[in-house]
């Protein structure tokens, strides 16, 4: 064999192990350099008064203490929570409704067509969507206010008022991401065994009963999964906000990630930015563990 020159004295078992390590090496180098080491580094930096050109020094828990008193961070967290609650509820709720409707008696082609239409915005960059919607949201010339005007609603200052900017971002997010929830729910619905429905029909259950007594309970692992995935995504909202409102007006739409970005890369206060990012990391970690723990239980329950 030609390769035996390369690794001459290995038993087959060791050889297999060698090649195994060789195959995961590129991935593990990347993992070590771009994830593992940066986490350690970020933790270290979060305890520092960090200067990018001058001297950095350890300041203990000062950055973390600042988190508790920083009113702008509090605003950013509140904004992020408001965004998360509404975006996740609407995305999951509307996604579920669309999936249930698509799962009804529909011709195959029509179902596929609708599903493709609903899903397509998921593939478009947040940046482009925000660029399009910024025109749609214009107060005087925007398409949205024109149609609201036909319904007798006064022009809404979508992007220039503190009250409306967040709803504007949420609406755009739902437009973009509902299709993803729809897709996962549809797959979940289609994996519910037909025998359950047949049995219910034989027992004379009506559609509403079938929905609440069979569909929803059988779908609950999927619902929970979608809620967690969307929460993790929403907590990190950034692209759409920076293009649509840049956090404004004032701080009305500033999200935590936008705040971290500004602290780190505009004010270059990287120590504080790292400390804030740790808080976000902790929240995401808790959510993911929760998801993992509960889905394990569900899998067990299913069997």
């Amino acid at each position: 064999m030609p390769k035996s020159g390369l690794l001459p004295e290995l038993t087959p078992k060791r050889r297999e192990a060698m090649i195994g390590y060789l195959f995961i090496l590129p991935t593990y180098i990347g993992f070590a350099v771009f994830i593992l080491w940066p986490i350690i580094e970020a933790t270290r930096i979060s305890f520092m008064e960090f200067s990018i050109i001058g001297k950095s020094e350890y300041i203990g828990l000062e950055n973390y203490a600042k988190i508790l008193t920083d009113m702008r961070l509090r605003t950013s967290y509140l904004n992020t929570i408001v965004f998360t609650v509404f975006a996740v509820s609407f995305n999951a709720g509307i996604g579920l409704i669309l999936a249930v409707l698509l799962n009804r008696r529909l011709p195959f082609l029509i179902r596929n067509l609708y599903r493709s239409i609903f899903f397509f915005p998921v593939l478009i960059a947040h940046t482009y969507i925000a660029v399009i919607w910024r025109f749609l949201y214009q107060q005087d010339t925007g398409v949205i206010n024109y149609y609201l005007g036909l319904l007798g609603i006064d022009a809404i200052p979508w992007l220039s008022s503190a009250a409306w900017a967040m709803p504007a971002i949420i609406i755009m997010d739902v437009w973009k991401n509902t299709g993803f929830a729809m897709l996962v729910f549809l797959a979940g619905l289609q994996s519910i065994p037909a025998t359950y429905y047949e049995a219910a029909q034989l027992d004379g259950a009506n559609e509403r009963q079938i929905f609440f007594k069979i569909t929803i309970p059988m779908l609950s692992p999927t619902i929970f999964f979608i809620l967690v995935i969307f929460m993790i995504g929403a907590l990190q909202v950034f692209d759409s906000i920076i293009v649509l409102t840049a956090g404004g007006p004032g701080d009305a739409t500033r999200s935590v990630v936008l705040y971290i970005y500004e602290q780190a890369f505009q004010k270059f206060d990287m120590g504080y930015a790292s400390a804030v990012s740790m808080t976000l990391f902790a929240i995401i970690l808790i959510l993911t563990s929760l998801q993992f723990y509960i889905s394990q239980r569900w899998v067990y329950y299913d069997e």
Partner: protein
Amino acid sequence: MAIQIDIGKTKRQKISSHSKKPLKRGDILSYIILTIAAILVLMPLLWMFSTSLRPTSESFSLPPQWLPTQFRVENYLAPFESNVPFQSFFFNSLKITLAVTIGQLITCSTAGYAFARLRFPGRNFLFILLLASLMVPSQVTIIPIFLTMRSLGLIDNHLAVILPGLVSAFGVFLMRQFFKQMPEELFDAAKVDGAGYIRTFLQIALPLAGPALATLGIITFNAIWNSYFLPLIFLNSWDNMTLPQGIALLTGYMGSGNPSVVMAAVTMAILPVLLVFIIAQRWIIEALTRSGLKG
């Protein structure tokens, strides 16, 4: 095109096909709701497209016109002639996207194969550790990565955006699942024929992994083509920027850019995604459904 997500679906279709009842009120209602939703989804895209073909003077004409009334194809040339280097944005995005996609296909297929098919001490632990990295938000790692790139002199260099993208825990997971599902006999036969591990991988496993590679390639292509966070941090001269950055630039502060030209640029930026979607819908939808990864 039939998309069989699983068996449950075929069963359900069988029921619905032999119960050919007339349309009920509920059916009509659901058609109406679905159609309204589809129109709402399509309208912004339709507005984008029809605006991109209108003269600038009419880009804000109200009532809005949804179908293109004019065909100003020169709007599509305007971004290339504007004061920002649109052509460079396009090629930079293409270059970075291709480099990352090809890199990931290599690193993920070898690692996925090793985790699925080769036995070595610590295999499961290393795999779970890798999966755990999916939980780490990029905002945590970005500051140290930025400092590293800075000390390597890679700020405003495409490598700063390409290198962190070359590995993907999700991609390894996807490839591992695929290699695991391959029949055992295939590998036994290769062993009997005296094929080494590397040859078995290159000549037997990899050629059969086409669908998985295509899926991973498409998902990665789309994610990198659309990515904004990393380029925003690392690429700051106009000539090095990517398409999302460039279009944000073209739009100007608070939307002062020329809408027709901006919409033509956005249409061009979305076009590759649309094409890939039409061609590879089946794979994208199946993979995203199965993995639950947000696009």
